Every structure is written in C-alpha cells, then in structure tokens.
C-alpha cells in the first residue's frame, strides 16, 4: 500500500480546495465579529431628483470624495423614501450625502434608529424648518451664502458703502442678523437692522429708521418683509435715493436689485466633501460641525441699475462678476 493518502491528482486538488474554503469561511466569520457591520467603506448619495441643482453638487462630491459611491434617487417622490432608505441601509454605507430637501429629510428619518451613520446634507433652502440639525448624525452645507460674503462682494463693487440697512422679522431672520453683525464688524461696516412683525410695517420702518442713514440696502429672503408689493416699493425708493442694493437671487437682480451673490453649486459639493472627510477621516462628530456656509459664489450684477443710481464700476471689477445684466 502507498504511504501517500492522495492516490491521484484529483483527490489532492479536492483536498486543497476544501481546505481553502474552510480557511476563507473562518476568516469571514472572524471578520464579522472584529469589524463593525456598518462600516462598508462606500458612500451613498441620495438625490431628491434629477434636477441639476441637486445633481451638480453630487457630481462634484463623487469626483472629490475618493471613495466608492452608490447613487440613489427619490425622483421627486418622497413616498419612495422608506424603500430607498431601506436599500441604502442594506448597503451599509459609511456616510450618506443627501442633496435636496426631500433627500435630506428622508435621510434624517431613515437614520433615526441608525445614528451611527453620518448624513451630510446640501441644497436645502429651509433646513431649520426640517429640524435637520436636531439629530446628532446630521451636518450640512447651507444653500445661501453668508451675510459677510454678500457684504464683501457688495463693497468690492461699491467701495463707498459704509452703512448697510436691513429690515427683517425676528421670527425668521434673528440668527442671520446676528451673523451679519459679526461680519459687518470684521469688514468695518455699520449694520442698521430694523425688525418688524408684519409685512405692512415695512414702509414705516424704512422711512423712520433707515431713510437718510444708509448707503446700501441688504435684501434678505424673509417672507414677512419681502412681499412683491414691498419689493416693488423698495426698488423704486432705492433708485430714488441712489442706494446700493444686494440680494440673493438672479431674479431680483433682473427685477432691478443691483447685485446678487448666490452659492456656486459645484463648490457646495466640494464643501460637502470637506465635511464628509472631517467626519470619516478626522472622526469629528457631525453635530459639532453643524451647518457650514458655502464659500464659492456666482455673482450677478445689473449694470442698468448701477447707471440709475450713479454708480460707476470699472471694467476690471465688472470682469470679476460672473453674470452681468444690461440692456442691449
């Protein structure tokens, strides 16, 4: 009888394959206990819909994060959120990037019992309304640029501005006014902020508290203050008084406001990556990071309004503006 138990090559190969399988299975079982089940290493991107406003930050996020990424989409239908979130959670993502309000809220609700999975949100206009910061695994990028960014761009276009007036409601804009006061101090500007409680009080507030005391008017997205009627009145008054006006939408510049400073969507994606890396690599807690203002901007200038208020802007400065509106 031959001392070698493997009488032929086929038996020997079978034995090796079996042994290999046993070793691999053992390692997998061991790994399941050693490594956290939810740290798959990939990032989930959840889109509200296919609109460019949501896909652009996601596109940049995907390019810059340097990690495997899976994309999920609510296609504008919040009713799909449970199913989509279940699918996301089954993939065990290390982080979720949610682009748009529906995606952010879906991610918040979906990770309520899984707050070990951090969520970074972006492109949510009223993130406070959705209480997105109320959950400890949530951090985000704001949609509107910070007041200081608007003031800095305003004073680049109109260096003579020293005193900025703003009318606001405490119910909607108390925090932004606090941020604005700090920014004004850094830039050496005076901010005169007048609160009102009702839309119809706007004119009186302007005439009693701001008229003759300001060089520029800051128009914030406050629903109590800025009704179409109030906006129209302010536009005519600011031209009559030759005031510099700055807001946050291309539409109001087209309607006659001098300057708008919007957030650049690609840069929002990059800011989100910065937050994601702080969480995943530097192990910072999302609730400590909070909601960061976007840094990259798209600036829009109405040259016709500049002419009407007697503001001369050099071609060199105009060339630094992204979109210039003028009558041909």
């Amino acid at each position, binding site marked *: 009888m031959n001392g070698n138990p493997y009488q032929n090559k086929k038996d020997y190969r079978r034995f090796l394959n079996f042994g290999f399988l046993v070793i691999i299975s053992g390692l997998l079982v061991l790994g399941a206990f050693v490594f956290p089940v939810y740290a798959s290493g990939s990032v989930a991107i959840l889109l509200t819909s296919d609109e460019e406003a949501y896909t652009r930050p996601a596109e940049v996020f995907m390019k810059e994060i340097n990690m495997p990424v899976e994309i999920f989409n609510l296609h504008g239908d919040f009713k799909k959120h449970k199913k989509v979130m279940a699918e996301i959670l089954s993939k065990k993502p290390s982080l979720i990037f949610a682009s748009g309000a529906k995606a952010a809220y879906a991610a918040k609700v979906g990770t309520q019992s899984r707050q070990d999975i951090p969520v970074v949100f972006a492109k949510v206009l009223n993130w406070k309304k959705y209480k997105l910061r109320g959950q400890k695994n949530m951090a985000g990028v704001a949609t509107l640029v910070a007041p*200081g960014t608007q003031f*800095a761009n305003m004073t680049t276009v109109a260096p003579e501005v020293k005193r900025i007036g703003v009318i606001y409601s405490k119910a909607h804009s108390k925090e932004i006014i606090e941020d604005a006061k700090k920014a004004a101090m*850094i*830039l050496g500007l005076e901010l005169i902020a007048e609160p009102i409680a009702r839309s119809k009080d706007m004119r009186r507030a302007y005439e009693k508290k701001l008229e003759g005391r300001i060089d520029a008017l800051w128009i914030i997205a406050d629903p109590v203050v800025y009704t179409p009627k109030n906006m129209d009145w302010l536009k005519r008054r600011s031209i009559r008084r030759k005031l510099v006006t700055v807001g946050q939408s291309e539409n109001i510049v087209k309607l006659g406001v001098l300057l708008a400073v919007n957030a*650049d969507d690609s840069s929002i994606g990059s800011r989100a990556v910065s937050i994601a890396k702080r969480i995943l690599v530097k192990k910072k807690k999302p609730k400590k990071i909070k909601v960061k203002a976007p*840094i*990259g*901007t798209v600036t829009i200038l109405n040259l016709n309004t500049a002419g009407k208020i007697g503001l001369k802007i050099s071609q060199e400065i105009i060339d630094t*503006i992204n979109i210039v509106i003028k009558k041909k």
Partner: protein
Amino acid sequence: MNNSFSVYKTVTAFLIIPFIVLWGGGGSFSEASQPEFYYFNPDSSQSNLGRLKHEMDSFFSQAGCAFTFQPFAHQVDLDRKLKEKPPAFLFAPDWYLQKYGGKFKLKGFLRPLRKGKSSYRKVLMVAKASDITPDDLEDNSLAMTSMGPGWANILNKIMFSAKGVNAGELDTVIVPKDSDAIIAVALGQVEMALVVKENLARINNPRIMNAVRPLIESAPIPMPVISYSKGAASPSDIQKLKEVFLDAGKKQMRAKIMEMLQIDEWQSISK
C-alpha cells in the same frame, strides 16, 4: 412607359434625398465643421465668461478664424465635453495638459507670457489675526481654485513638501474664483487661502485685504497652455492660430483680449 417612370422616380429620389439630409442637418453640419476652441482658466480673475466669449468670437472673426469659442467655469463641465468630443484647441492650465493630454491627444504649442515670464506664483493667505505660521500648516482648512485630481501632489511640489506637510491631509474646499477664497479667509470660514499673486492686486477691496496677510509664496507654476487635439485640428488651422497670436503685425488686433486674459505676449512651445 412604366419602366421609364420608375427610373425617373429612382433618379429623383437619389437627387432629392441628399438635398433633404443636407438641408435638414445643414445647421448642425456647419456647426460641426467649425473648429472648437475650449477655454478653462480657474486662476484668471476674468470671471465674466459671457463677455470673454463675445470678445473672443469678435477677435477670431476679425482675424479670419472660423472658430467657435467656448469658455468653462468648472472642470466637471469641461471634462464632460472633452469626453464627448475633444475640441480642435484648448486653453487650459498646464496641470490639465499634464494630466489629460495623453488621453485626449492634446499637444501644447503656445504659451502666454506675463511680464516676460512663462510662469506665475501663488500666495498662501491667512487672516491677519491668525496665529498660523509657515512651520505650522497642518490640520488647517484651505480654500483654493481647482488644480485637478492631482492637486495634492502639485501643492506638495510647489509649497507644502518644503514645510514638511502633506497637502493631501489638509481640509480643502474648491472654489471657482480667488476672490471667494480670500473672502472666506477674511470672514473666518476657512483658515487659509491659496491665490494667484497677481490677483491680489485685482481684489480691489481694502475691507477684505486689511483682514488678511500673506504667509508663503509658492514655487513658479507654468502658465496655462493652448494645445491642439491631433485629429481635430487641421494643420492649416494650427498655423492660422499661431499667426494670429504670434504675428507682431496683429498685436493691435489682439490687444483687447490679451488685456482681458492678463497676458502680455505669446511664445511658441518647442518640443
């Protein structure tokens, strides 16, 4: 008679169908036949790309070049267009050509000069009140314009390796304009900003500039390059573009766009 009629129909079809195809596709055909000149220059303070396109289209028309000029504010859009179909010509940062030149068969042939130099420098800026020193750059946030996916290697090469710092470990945010980066530092949104030295003089706002200070200057960075795509640019178009940008007799014609691009003159890139 039937035979001659069917012959007649066949001949007519052969004559009419190509005419319909050419007429219907005429617009796109004529567009496709115009060589495209793409522009991507994140380090330029020229952000009004609408005006740039208008002036470049006028310039090319005046110079007798039937090129379509297309500027891009973001690399992600340029990458997408290049993947669809490389243009005949591309004006882009040197790092872009280094990274993607092989893939899109791009060959640099013209480089701009500014004050006689074919390179420029960037400056690392911090808030005036910041306690960051050149020997203490780690663990800080940095805002800067795009330098592509190899940005960390580039930054290490031009600045950070010399300070014993790996730029790849910095918390970076990419912005479309140098002014965004400087404003972010002034307001305390980031700790550092990397901006083109010449652009500092153009950020004509003492309220911002009084809130920041320079920390380190980079090593020289090659100026952006005009390249042509092999197969997309014809030899005659390449020659035409060389003449337009190098011919001393056309200096007055190109003065306006040179000023917009902050370029003094062009030089040919030798092999």
